[in-house]
């Protein structure tokens, strides 16, 4: 049940039957682009709202509660404000790079959204190297951050950008390796294949302890990858004022801001897809009645529920932990996470070879 493929196919066939092949693909791309952009903007705004509400809850505050019921329109009002604000031009900045940097950051995260499976068939593009694609695209964002820091011609920005570069390049390894562990289990890099391989149980549950280790490492490294939480060294407010985006204003700042939240969503979505069975419902072996009830909940809800849970955990990190120092950050990756990850990979390969996982 709840298969979106017929719906998607019907849209597809509508365009292919009414237009020439060239125009059909152009129109489909346009439709898809608009859909993803709208989804991106709305989700980004409501993630900001969620973060503000959750952090308020953790800090004995109420959070936004004036604009609209429960302050639901607060972030939209903020976006309008940011859109109307003046774009400050820095006199000695490198104009071209300064302007292009926010776009690189945001394009990288929009492109990664495209390959995430929200439900069966509800996926813009199902590449056979989906995991590799997401890793490659999401690490493109750091180029934007580096450019932003360099082009701003501000000393704080350069420090922030260099920190971000060192951080993302290091933690990219851990993200990649922990995903690789699960790819060894699933035997495929195609996201839809990875999900179908979890029909009989999520990899987190049937992968023994190594899968759990990989999950924890992925969460830590993923948080670091998004420059958030205890790893927000690139913008370290109390040290570097705002790090790489110190000199940005208005909508360009909003791009960085939105991209941060969407990167968090992407990290959480990938964790959901690979470790927690994506849009698959929660099943307990042999509990048929329970499983049937679970099946009635649409997969989109499952997907977003799991993603929201992981996002909540990441926000929890951010609002309770102090920030790491740059050398501690790199030591954590190179001295602890990476060796552990490599060991884990060997262990998982062995498990898979012996077919000891469920």
């Amino acid at each position, binding site marked *: 049940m709840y298969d979106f493929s017929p719906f998607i196919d019907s849209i597809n066939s509508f365009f292919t039957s009414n237009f020439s092949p060239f125009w059909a693909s152009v129109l489909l791309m346009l439709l898809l682009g608009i859909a993803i952009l709208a989804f991106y903007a709305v989700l980004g705004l409501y993630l900001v709202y969620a973060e503000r509400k959750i*952090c308020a809850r953790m800090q004995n505050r109420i959070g936004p509660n004036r604009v609209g019921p429960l302050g639901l329109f607060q972030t939209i009002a903020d976006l309008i404000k940011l859109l109307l604000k003046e774009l400050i031009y820095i006199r000695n900045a490198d104009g071209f790079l300064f302007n292009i940097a926010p776009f690189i950051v945001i394009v990288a995260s929009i492109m990664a959204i495209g390959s995430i499976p929200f439900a069966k068939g509800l996926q813009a593009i199902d590449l056979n190297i989906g995991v590799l694609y997401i890793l490659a695209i999401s690490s493109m964002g750091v180029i934007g951050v580096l450019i932003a820091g360099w082009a701003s011609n501000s000393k704080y920005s350069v420090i922030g950008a260099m920190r971000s570069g060192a951080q993302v390049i290091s933690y990219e390894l851990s993200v990649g390796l922990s995903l690789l562990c699960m790819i060894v289990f699933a035997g495929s890099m195609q996201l839809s294949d990875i999900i179908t391989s979890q029909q009989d149980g999520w990899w987190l549950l049937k992968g023994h302890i190594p899968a759990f280790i990989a999950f924890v490492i992925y969460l830590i490294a993923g948080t670091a990858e998004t420059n958030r939480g205890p790893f927000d060294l690139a913008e370290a407010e*109390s040290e570097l*004022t705002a790090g790489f985006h110190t000199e940005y204003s208005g909508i360009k700042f909003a791009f960085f801001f939105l991209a941060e939240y969407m990167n968090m969503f992407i990290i959480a979505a990938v964790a959901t897809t690979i470790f927690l069975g994506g849009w698959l419902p929660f099943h307990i072996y042999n509990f048929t009645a329970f499983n049937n009830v679970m099946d009635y909940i649409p997969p989109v809800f499952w997907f977003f529920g799991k993603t929201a849970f992981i996002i909540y955990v990441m926000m929890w990190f951010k609002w309770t932990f*102090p920030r*790491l*120092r740059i050398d*501690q950050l790199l030591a954590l990756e190179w001295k602890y996470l990476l060796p552990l990850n490599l060991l884990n990979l060997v262990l998982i390969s062995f498990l898979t070879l012996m077919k000891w996982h469920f």
Partner: protein
Amino acid sequence: MEETLVDIDFKEKEEYIINMGPQHPSTHGVLRFETCLQGEKVKYIIPHCGYIHRGIEKMSESLTYPQLLHLTDRMDYLSAHINNEAVALCVENAMEVEVSDRVKYIRTILAELSRIASHQLWWSAFGMDLGALTTFFYGLRDREKILDIFEETTGSRLIQSFITPGGLMADIHPNFQRRVKEFITYFRKKLPEYDQLLTGNVIFRERTLGIGYMSKEDAIDYAVTGPSGRGSGFHCDVRKLAPYSAYPFVQFNEITYTEGDTYHRYLVRMKEMWESLNILEQLVDNIPQGEIMLNLKAIKAPKGEYYQRVETARGELGVYIVSDGAPTPARIKYRSPNFSNLFILNKVSANHKIADLVAISGSLDLVIPDIDR
């Protein structure tokens, strides 16, 4: 001292100098650190103060002694009561009068309450310096309770001008004792929360343990007083060394550690909050009856030189008054704790990372208006 403050080779071209401040989130005011970096490492820093210099000492020469209070409030605004008390004690000593025990008790209670409030705010801001943003709201939530007590009795929350030469501006509010006792029980429950949130955190300990080592000799050389000095084993608590007001009547411990790093400067303040609660508990039920204000014809110091020191939340505050017998002081000098504590920063934070500089300057608990006066 052999070593100069900063050893600078101006010909060196590879220096990467950033200005932390005057507007910077971690200096908590208008202080500027000219920071020379080598990568992430701090080579040296030159503190530049004077951005909020208001000429308080010069202004004081044209004010009568009771009017001095309103300026002392604005030096270290987080221990306003204690600053007032310093001036009041100095003038009383000069006039050779003694206030009633009731006044002494109330002064000490107010001073200890301000100490707790100040340490709460410091704790909040210190967490923020390290990137733990939630501490700020925990600290301020509990500080509100103290400010409410102040507001009820003194009529204002931050700068009270309540303790005046000769006594107090007014008697305490009828609710005062009850609310202080409520606060003691309330805060005893809340203090362990502070430890749960920050002290035991692995990242926090990694960030502070062994960072910014200050030896006892350094602390004495640079006259680093208060909790920052006591973290290095320098016994400098004026409440113990030269007890004033009601401190001779109470039992309390001077908290000292010998480790001298950021973490132990932090621990001193955390333990001091417990000690202050103990002091409050001993005093609040035993406030004796007595006169609130001495019946003095004119409040002015006779000709001579007078010095009085007290322990503020940040260290030793000295008031030095030179009087020629006029209603206004001829010269007044404040030995402010923050000014002395600031200049150890270069020595302590050299060869640490930028993030450590922020942690160390946070652990010194600087209040900028007190540096510049």
